[in-house]
């Protein structure tokens, strides 16, 4: 997992759409170098003075970028993602919600064969405050530079918790939304491995929710690898009904599979400090950092 450094060029796929346009503006405002955009058939135009190309290949050739953030509609995400992977993109952020599961699986397979990091789909993207790099849709004012890495399945909870950390004086080394779908390109375990070797990161906050077993797998991974940095987790959905999809395609409990209780118990069992509400997170981070110092 390698993120762009300050000033390194980034491509926006689907730059001429409503959200592509809006967030290109916000990413530029933050200081991110959006060097090119793509939309098939719109080559030659510009958006916020960023040149638009027909293909990712052209955009890569002109800018040398290896990172792309993708805003295209769900039904075209697979084709656009494959285009990026074939054009040599090494970091692909899929913001789009409602991508069919089998399209995501095909992208993940192709990405793995090419050694590409895929983030999302159905995610807010990533932000590295110290580098002024924002590849996503998160509101910049919630984030500040610092030593806490935040990884979240939910967008708004990531903003809310980052905002509270910022208010409490804990900036973020990176904040990354892995996505709310049943299957996503980057696993929580991979995020933790990154954070462990990431020098600026002093503590990790994991924001999970009901559905699937990503948090249970994460807990096993933490125990097995004797993880070295302090971790604080928050899991949403303790009072969620079963068999109902709650907002995210992946947020659903089947029988006893995917309950918040199972996730909280697993993480506690692995020595993770678990917050019962988002508001408790900054205090637990403070305590965890003090204990590890």
């Amino acid at each position, binding site marked *: 997992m390698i993120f762009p450094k300050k000033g390194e060029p980034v491509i926006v796929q689907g730059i001429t759409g409503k959200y592509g346009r809006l967030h290109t503006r916000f990413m530029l405002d933050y200081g991110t170098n959006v060097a090119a955009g793509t939309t098939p058939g719109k080559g030659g135009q510009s958006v916020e003075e960023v040149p638009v190309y027909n293909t990712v290949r052209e955009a890569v050739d002109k800018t040398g970028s290896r990172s792309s953030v993708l805003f295209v509609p769900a039904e075209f995400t697979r084709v656009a993602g494959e285009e990026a992977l074939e054009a040599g993109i090494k970091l692909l952020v899929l913001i789009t919600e409602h991508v069919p599961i089998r399209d995501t699986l095909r992208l993940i397979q192709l990405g793995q064969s090419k050694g590409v990091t895929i983030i999302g789909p159905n995610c807010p993207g990533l932000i590295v405050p110290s580098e002024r790099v924002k590849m996503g849709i998160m*509101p910049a004012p919630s984030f500040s530079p610092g030593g806490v890495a935040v990884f979240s399945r939910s967008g708004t909870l990531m903003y809310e918790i980052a905002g509270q950390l910022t208010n409490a004086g804990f900036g973020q080394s990176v904040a990354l939304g892995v996505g709310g779908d049943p299957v996503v390109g980057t696993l929580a375990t991979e995020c933790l491995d990154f954070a462990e070797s990431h020098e600026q990161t002093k503590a990790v906050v994991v924001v999970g929710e009901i559905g699937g077993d990503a948090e249970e797998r994460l807990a096993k991974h933490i125990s097995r690898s004797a993880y070295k940095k302090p971790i604080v987790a928050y899991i949403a959905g303790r009072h969620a*009904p079963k068999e109902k999809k*709650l907002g995210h395609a992946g947020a659903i409990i089947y029988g006893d599979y995917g309950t918040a209780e199972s996730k909280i118990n697993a993480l506690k069992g692995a020595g993770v400090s678990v917050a019962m509400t988002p508001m408790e997170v900054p205090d637990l981070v403070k305590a965890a950092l003090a204990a590890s110092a």
Partner: protein
Amino acid sequence: MRLFEFQAKELFRSYGLPTPRSVLAGDVKSVRGAFASLSPPVALKAQVLAGGRGKAGGIAIVSTEADAEREAKRIFDLSIGGEKPASLLVEEAYPHSSEWYLSVTLDRGDRSFVTIASTAGGIEVESMAGKVIRKVPLAGIDQAYADEVASLLKLDSGTAPQFAGMLLSLERLAREKECELAEINPLAVGNDGRLMALDAKVIIDDSALFRHPEFAKLHPEDEFEGEASRQGFAFVRLGGDIAVVGNGAGLVLSTLDLLGDAGGNPACFLDLGGGAQQERIEAALRLVNRLPGVDRVLVNIYGGITRTTDVAQGILTVLSEGRAKPIYARVSGAEEKLARALIADSPVKLYDTAPEAVQAVVRAA
């Protein structure tokens, strides 16, 4: 989207998967007619999407017309997980000696579809002993794969080819119709050795429905869920008296937790979505105001791309239309001071934090 059993069985038959003879009946009179056209004994099976149908009394085996009528009346009056059966599947009983399990399903953790098969079926898949689990390639499986699963299950030469054929059909169905789950439980082994899908469970990937318009109109839509879906909200009815509205799935989920901890009962989960505009909060408030059972509204907004001033304006607009349910709100984030000033003189009860708003809305009962 989960299909009703009768829909899933129609799909099964179109893929050549054997199912018992059956007739769908929408009322007691039709059940009598269906009973007369089949060979008893027959099963009457409530068509609901909620789990635990058998335990709730939603299935009966009957041998006479009088029993069929009495049991049909009883089942039509049931509420299974809050759901009233709109129809019964009247199905010939299938004499069988054992029950197996077969499914093609998404394994989220392994990020792959898998075949799960067992000759100890009829129970929860998690606790099934001796089950065979094999990854399913995205391009599909072939005869050799199906034969291998049959051989791992140690099936005899009479049933192995039938089983392999069913697995091939089920996998093709799951792939072509983009199912998250296609399950036969139980898969019955008849007294004559013929295999039969006694139950059918199919969940279609909601995100893939645009490629499968044939499923679009299968469900009778709840009025409110229909409107919410046209507005682009994520919406689930929960039956309590406090409507919960917020921006972002995780934020609304965490609001439900705060409410639950404080002893409140949510009437619904409503996620406005990211980047919500004034019109969206207005549409959401109008919707929950009309929702039966709603007494108060809890609004939790963390403004980022969503402008809190737009939210405040939307709340004011709906209040000015009259008859709005009391609103307890927490509005934080970008431009929050402006937003708070806008609604300071309105009847909206405004709190600095989500827990405070939750405490207040619960106490107001």
